[in-house]
């Protein structure tokens, strides 16, 4: 008998249809992967089960959980279910906890509410579940506040809240998307263990096919609010019978064509040279005149990049890769060491003296939504870096250059009169690339440029990067925690750990045979679709669970 059964669920919010005739079932102890791109209705399906939908939402169909008709259940019945038999974990651990309450209170609150035990008993149970999710008392007393914990630790607290009363069903909505791969692997292990211990059902929502292939027994693929295909994970994802399934799977392992001889040694002086770069941040104040010792974010990093080369800087969150990037871009001053671009050193220069260098290096950021002023037209947004030229182009020339840049990234010249909100996420990332290439720079630093994008869009943007590398001879430094990006597009990988570059080499060598512990941890933790599918398939054929 299934634990959760959704039949013919349709949902509209304020008259806009969101879900159409969704069907899915989860049995006790089963993991169901719900896959889809943004806007496909994954989260809304979850919120329907939790009955935490926006007020204007209207749901039709049948949702049965543990024999209870969810759509007909009154609010106080739902309050008894939520947090007890029905738990939920959210995507963004940084904001999912109340900043003004200690973690112990936040875990114990639900326990007290549902079981009516005394405060002391609830705290003892909160302690036990926090220990279980890997937050031991010695380092994580109940009195800790969320801001004293890292993202991965906070996600453990959220899982502890959701699992404190051993729910029958846990809904996890992109639980690891905001975490680096090593933390992702730890959190996924924890979820898998909790499923095994309590025969808990798990509805795992993800856009990442590799994660789903590793975790889920069965998979349901959503698109535009409708189910495209569903069935056992291994069979569905390897047969790829449905065209959309095939499209998703191909996009997530997409490698752009780069018809260039990788063995050709680039000649000439290096484009970018970084020598002994170090950045200290002052330590926290412990007394009126006392500070903790300074925190070294980047520690004596040296490397050089030849022109036309594509390198990836990979590492876990907090390893110092973004600080390093900011210093290369002369947005942050190094404590020691030097950066030179085309033989010209950058530090100690005034903004006016840096203009030449700024023309030659541009940046593409992660979030295509947050990096534009919503009230400016595309023409103005893309033309922004043109102020770096000593002779400002006039209006006609400016439009011409913007049109050329938009054409380079696959957009139409007519798009320059539109506003950012008229574009999709992928198109916006194209606009930010257009903005970066309008000065015809030599070096582009891209900070997680595709992490916020859906897989199919991400494949297109990677193609664009590869194409621009060929056509314009751009040199890239990709900063990422995602090894598939590094694998897809870079010649060389540098692995960063605790402020140092610990391993460096041709991409395929490093990713196939990592030698340092930091690189091994990254490579080992990164989910791999093909390997996971192979394991799934053999398990499904022999009929034994993984």
């Amino acid at each position, binding site marked *: 008998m299934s634990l959760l059964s959704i039949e013919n669920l349709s949902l509209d919010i304020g008259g806009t249809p969101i879900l159409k005739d969704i069907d899915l079932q989860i049995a006790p102890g089963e993991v169901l992967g719900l896959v889809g791109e943004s806007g496909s209705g994954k989260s809304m399906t979850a919120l329907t089960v939790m009955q935490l939908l926006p007020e204007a939402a209207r749901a039709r169909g049948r949702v049965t959980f543990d024999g209870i008709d969810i759509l007909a259940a009154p609010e106080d019945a739902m309050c008894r279910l939520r947090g007890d038999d029905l738990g939920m974990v959210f995507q963004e651990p940084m904001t999912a906890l109340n900043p003004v309450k200690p973690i112990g209170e936040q875990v114990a609150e639900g326990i007290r509410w549902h079981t009516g035990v005394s405060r002391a008993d609830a705290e003892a149970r909160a302690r036990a579940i926090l220990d279980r999710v890997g937050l031991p008392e010695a380092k994580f007393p109940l009195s800790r506040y969320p801001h004293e914990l890292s993202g991965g630790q906070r996600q453990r607290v959220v899982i502890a809240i*959701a699992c404190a009363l051993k729910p029958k069903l846990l809904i996890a909505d992109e639980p690891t998307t905001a975490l680096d791969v090593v933390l992702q692997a730890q959190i996924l292990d924890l979820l898998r263990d909790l499923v095994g211990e309590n025969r808990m059902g798990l509805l795992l929502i993800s856009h990442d096919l590799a994660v789903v292939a590793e975790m889920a027994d069965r998979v349901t693929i959503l698109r535009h609010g409708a189910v495209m295909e569903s069935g056992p994970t291994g069979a569905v994802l390897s047969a790829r019978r449905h065209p959309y399934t095939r499209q998703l799977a191909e996009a997530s392992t997409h490698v752009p064509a780069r018809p260039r001889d990788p063995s050709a040694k680039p000649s000439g002086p290096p484009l970018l040279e970084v020598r002994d770069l170090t950045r200290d941040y002052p330590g926290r104040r412990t007394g009126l005149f006392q500070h903790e010792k300074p925190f070294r974010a980047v520690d004596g990093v040296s490397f050089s990049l030849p022109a036309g080369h594509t390198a990836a800087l990979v590492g876990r969150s907090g390893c110092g890769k973004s600080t390093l990037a900011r210093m290369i871009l002369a947005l942050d001053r190094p404590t020691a060491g030097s950066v030179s671009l085309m033989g010209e050193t950058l530090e100690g220069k005034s903004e006016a003296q840096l203009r030449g260098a700024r023309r030659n290096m541009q940046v593409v950021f992660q979030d295509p939504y947050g990096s534009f002023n919503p009230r400016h037209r595309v023409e103005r947004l893309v033309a922004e870096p043109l102020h770096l030229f000593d002779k400002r182009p006039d209006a006609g020339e400016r439009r011409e250059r913007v049109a050329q840049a938009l054409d380079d990234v696959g957009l139409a010249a007519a798009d320059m009169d539109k506003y950012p909100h008229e574009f999709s996420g992928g198109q916006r990332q194209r606009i930010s690339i257009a903005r970066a290439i309008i000065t015809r720079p030599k070096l582009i630093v891209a900070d997680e440029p595709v992490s916020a994008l859906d897989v199919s869009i991400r494949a297109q943007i990677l193609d664009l990067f590869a194409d621009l590398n060929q056509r314009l001879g751009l040199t890239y430094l990709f900063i990422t925690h995602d090894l598939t990006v590094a694998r897809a597009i870079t010649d060389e990988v540098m692995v960063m750990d605790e402020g140092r570059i610990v391993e460096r080499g041709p991409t395929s060598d490093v990713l196939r045979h990592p030698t340092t512990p930091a690189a091994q941890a990254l490579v080992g933790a990164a989910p791999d679709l093909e390997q996971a599918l192979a394991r799934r398939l053999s398990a499904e054929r022999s009929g034994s669970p993984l």
Partner: protein
Amino acid sequence: MIAYLIKRIAIGLVTLAVASAVVFCVLEIVPGDPALLMLGMNAEPEALAALRDEMGLNQPVLLRYVDWVSGMMVGDFGRSYTYSSPVIDLIAERVLVSLPLALMALFLSTAIALPVGIFSAARRGKAADTMVMGAAQVGVAIPNFWFALLLIYLFAVWLRLVPAGGFPGWGAGVWPAVKALIMPAVALALPQAAILARVTRSAMLEVLGEDYIRTARAKGMPRRIVLWHHALRNALIPVLTILGLQFAFLLAGTIIIENVFYLPGLGRLVFQAITQRDLIVVEGVMMLLVATVVLVNILVDIGYAIVDPRLRTRR
């Protein structure tokens, strides 16, 4: 937390020092000779010179500033030219009216505004919210003196529950004194409550959209408990800021209400002192207000730290 407090207090002291210099300088450069004003336009030049000498107006500016500041440190604010009594006595007498009035008004406005703001936020967009916020809009728009006149007509003239104005003094007993302050406090509190209710509502609405509110709901907590236990405390920071600003206003900005109710408060004292060029009184009241604002700000900062644990450990 200790470092945080010390820093706040140090900032407060610097503010006081800067303010004293500004107050002194401004009053130094405004036209009008207090000695001339005391003696009248037809005064004998000799008498004028003698009085200026006696008042210390002939001494160098810096010396007079140092005298003034060091006097204030030991509670000597100088003597009023027009009242011929120590400024400190004048202020003390008026503070006994203004401070209880301000506290009563503040208490009333908070007691009205917080529940109304929370109620409104919880029913966002519904009829009750629209009505309450409409009323608050009217409350912001109505001048408080007009409201005061309405109150006098209703409660003093028509129902005869409270006196229409005047202050019997605390010597006449606590209840008669409090009774005389009730209507002015209500008249002061309502517009303040209207502003505070709007701030509370928007702060609550912002917090109610946060992820952790959804986490609390996913824990099974009913909406009402989430509102009071999770949302309110996070919404208090902007509310505290407005409360601090309002208290400073209520203490000295009440001259119109004091006039309507004929109360001997600080506002009227400073108004009379300005019209009569009694600069030493103006200076004294100014410094008292600056000190109050600084103190209230420190209290608000402590309030922030109590509400938000992140501020306690911040560098």
